[in-house]
């Protein structure tokens, strides 16, 4: 059973900010369909009135005192930056010129 087509794969890849080659799109359509086919077994389970469980710990809204503490130095943080300028991460232009 085919759940998704190439167009859906392209849409999802865009949402995931992932460039895929044509070959990858083909492969992804096949393998994702196979996995989603396996996932159909979930649809058969009656989950009426079952609450979803997003995590296993009984903790909620963990708060801490608003105290000033040390953090990473700017120098340390930029050691891994692919590109930087004057204390900022440098990226290609985001806002178009008019």
């Amino acid at each position, binding site marked *: 059973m085919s759940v998704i087509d190439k167009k859906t794969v392209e849409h999802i890849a865009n949402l995931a900010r992932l460039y895929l080659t044509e070959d990858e799109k083909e492969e992804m359509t096949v393998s994702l369909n196979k996995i989603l086919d396996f996932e159909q077994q979930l649809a058969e389970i009656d989950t009426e009135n079952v609450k979803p469980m997003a995590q296993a710990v009984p903790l909620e809204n963990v708060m801490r005192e608003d105290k000033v503490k040390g953090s990473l130095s700017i120098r340390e943080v930029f050691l891994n930056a*692919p590109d930087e300028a004057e204390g900022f991460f440098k990226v290609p232009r985001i806002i178009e010129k008019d």
Partner: protein
Amino acid sequence: MELINKSALELHDLLDKKEITSREIVEAYIKRIEALEPKLNSFVTLTLEQALEDADKADEMIKNKTSTTFTGIPIAIKDNMCTYHVKTTCSSKMLQDFKPPYDATVIAKIKKAGMPILGKTNMDEFAMGSSTETSFFGPSKNPWDLERVPGGSSGGSAAAVAAKQAPLALGSDTGGSIRQPAALTGVVGLKPTYGLVSRYGLIAFASSLDQIGPFTRDVADSAALLNMLAGYDPKDTTSLPNKRSDYLQALGKEIRGLRVGLPREFFGEGLDKEVEKAVLKAIDALATEGAQIVEIDLPYSKKALAAYYLIATAEASSNLARLDGVRYGHRSENQKDSVTMFKHSRAEGFGPEVKRRIMLGTYALSAGFYDAYYLKALKVRTLIKNDFDAAFKKVDVIVTPTTPSVAFKFGEKVLDPLAMYLSDVYTTTANLAGIPAMSMPAGLTKEKLPIGVQIIAPALAEEIMLNTAYTLEKAIGTIGLPTLEV
């Protein structure tokens, strides 16, 4: 005296009695690592010089009487735990040059204890895989048979401990990534209760499932290392603020009357006959020790794998969104505009399995499919948890096979993602329920490949779980370690 044959606690005794030094231990391991690494590829990065320096510092600590149990005993670390200024790659091209500006909490504990770190171990890329075959740096080999996988994702850590390249290692377990490789390489691997060990500085795969845990050669070492790792950490908001237990102290108690659950669903179709036989033999051994064997049902465990692969990938798609080539990690040369740069950085930085899981997770969370996939999986997760809650009213621990089969050959499953996912069929339930589980050797097949038996316990019942394992280890004996030509 062959130092590499000793358990960590045995080494501690020898250090304590001043019969050996930490430097001697580390030198012995360096020799072993250098001899075997070309064959095994257990490590991504070796930090041997630093380990020798740390050994000398540890010897000072022992002299000054400021040492603790693991002072001077070396360890290997899975390459998804942040180590200050030491490459932490997640076995991915994306992070191949990433040097964290801080230590994970577990690493800070290891350094404070004076444990020399031998290196960072190989893994499936971003912990996504069950064989280390998705590693950007090539797979690790199973020390029992170099043509077979060591399991994954923490395959490098498992191989290193089995091959005596390290007495101890850390791994992380999201759906079986400690227990499955431990089973396939014949060592002890433990996934603690969710929240027992801090995740701060563990590069996240699926945050609600990930836990760090020990790889060791025996159960006592596992208990002792868990003593060091466990504990509340304010830097991890999912860390449990419970009182600490002494897991080593829990070992050796009689198990007379212990109720051991045998879930029918874990002994059905797909289970290798030799694995089944060895696990049933282990259960018999527990009965001989006085345990009461109770057949139980975990009906929704059959659906766990399907729920797991949606929940884990959904969380992964969100966690891995940070890897966009902006602040750290690989950045593409293709920088026409920011979005193009993101897309190409991610396309070039991630391997095929990581891309597939990001896609699956994004799909499960996307508008129109969220209810049918992600939300549905979360509801099934509740049913799986309810199964365990009901079972643990009748039994104290549950014993199952760790994996449906022993170590498979390279290439056997890597082209069929679903076949690979099925090797996690018995392990994902514990992650979904947030409960502890461990794998230990139950014997060898005719082909001399290790078989793992899994012990599952209620949340925070690691003491009972470890004592059951300890009793079993005493009863059935160890399988030894592989004989490798150096």
